């Protein structure tokens, strides 16, 4: 393997957005302590501000558990997670989340879904409307503001999900396989769209996927979770927009596929 794909953990500093410190997670499985099942063991991850990090791993490797802990839905059994130096103690607006199943409120229109965060946080009506306008434009869904989630295609719904998370101005954005349920073409378009939003909004993204190509295409850094541990943490040294056919790209793909075990991870 070439030299650029070596482990590069960023230096600790003030611009650490997400810090995962020696985190383990176990699920109690039986009466005795020995029966506890660890899904993650002694994980250390630092995500810098404005960094796009993809977590790659086979199903059941604990990557969703990792995200759920950062989001504050579940608590680490050991260790600590900080967002900009402040410990995560539960779900809060600091971490915006985009789910695989869009998770839009089915009874709210596109516009009202996007306005939900600002409304919950008691922003004035004018402000809410302004925010809604801005993000509807960002995702290019003008004219569809009054549609209900059921009337949207998968890609549109997911864009609304992203807009809803961003409209609340979170400190970090967590994405749990957000493109996993989309067809290949929509997925392709959504990646480009996502990078456009990422570059425009200057936000930190923690993104979970099981597609090697997707991770390399999107991320500044790819972290592979395997056997309950961080298997490797690799900086992707490619200029955007990235060409999936380029030699270097394919080299990265081969590298990660070898890490995950060839054939176990299929591309989309």
């Amino acid at each position, binding site marked *: 393997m070439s030299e650029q794909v070596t482990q590069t953990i960023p230096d600790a500093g003030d611009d650490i957005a997400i810090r995962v410190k020696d985190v383990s997670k176990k699920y109690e499985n039986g009466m005795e302590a020995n029966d506890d099942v660890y899904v993650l063991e002694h994980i250390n991850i630092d995500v810098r501000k404005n960094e796009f990090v993809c977590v790659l791993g086979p199903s059941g490797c604990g990557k969703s558990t990792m995200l759920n802990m950062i*989001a*504050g*839905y579940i608590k680490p059994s050991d260790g600590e997670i900080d967002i900009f130096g402040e410990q995560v103690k*539960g*779900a*809060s*607006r600091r*971490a*915006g*989340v985009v*789910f695989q*199943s869009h*998770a*839009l*409120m*089915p*009874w*709210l229109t596109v516009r009202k879904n996007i306005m*939900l*965060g600002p409304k*919950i*946080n008691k922003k004035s009506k004018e402000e809410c409307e302004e925010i809604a306008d801005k993000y509807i434009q960002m995702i290019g869904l003008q004219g569809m503001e009054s549609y*209900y*989630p*059921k*009337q949207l295609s998968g890609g549109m719904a997911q864009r609304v999900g992203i807009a*809803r*998370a961003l409209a*609340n101005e*979170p400190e970090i954005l967590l994405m749990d396989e957000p493109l996993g349920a989309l067809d290949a073409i929509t997925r392709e378009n959504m990646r480009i769209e996502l990078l456009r939003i990422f570059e425009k909004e200057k936000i930190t993204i923690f993104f979970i996927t099981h597609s090697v190509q997707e991770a390399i295409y999107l991320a500044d850094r790819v972290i592979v979770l395997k056997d309950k541990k961080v298997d490797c943490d690799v900086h992707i040294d490619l200029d955007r927009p990235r060409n999936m056919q380029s030699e270097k790209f394919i080299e990265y793909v081969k590298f990660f596929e070898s890490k995950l075990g060839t054939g176990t991870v299929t591309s989309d």
Partner: protein
Amino acid sequence: MNKKKKKKTVKWTVKVNIISLIVFFVAWQLISMANEKYLWFNAKFLPSPSEVWLTAVEHVQDGTLLPNIAISVQRILLGFGIGTGLAILFGCFFVNIPFIEAWLSPIFNLFGAIPPFALLPLIIIWFGIGESSKVGLIAYSTFMSMLPYIVDGLKNTSPVLIRAASSLGASKMQIFTRVMIPNALPNLFVGMKIALAMTFGALMVAEMLGASKGLGFMIINARQWFRVNDMFLSIIIIGLLYELFFYILTFFEKLLFKWKTDVSSAIEK
């Protein structure tokens, strides 16, 4: 193309629905007329629709019909309203305060198994035959049949929606008001529609035992004087009232839950 087709099917079913009703009433009329002629059984047992109609006109003119309808409608509205309100209130308590649910649900389950109508004689002994015991019974019947639907609707909120809201900064209270309640509203309407049958049942029982007015009283009173026409009239009005209330609920359901109705039919023909 698609839309046109859909509209056509709707019209087709509505047409058949109307024809079905017309056929029913015409058949009734014919059987009743034939019976009058050939006397298969006592003609008084089965008055024809036209005779029932004349009875209705007669009672409107002598001023006995409308007050009876009015008092029944009033009892329904009060009982149904109070029952629904209490069911919503208790539903909210149950879901938010497990302690209350743990204490009350076994008791409610115990009473829920008893047909509310069995309690009426006792209610009359305790509270008399006043308006309040009638409305009370109707409210109780409504409440008992609706509560499970409300609790179910509130509890069956998708966890991912709760997570989504909490990541937007929603407090427990906000999750309840902005996620769980809207999520439970369709269930509330299902509950209301089902409870409506119980409400009408309770109305009949309450008006047949110890009332001097109302549609149920009309039936009991008619029996004493062997006025089968009056019975039929009252029965038909009860049916129509039930349909009306059901229709109103369906109307609001359609209005409120546009987000639920699927835009495309499951299988195109």
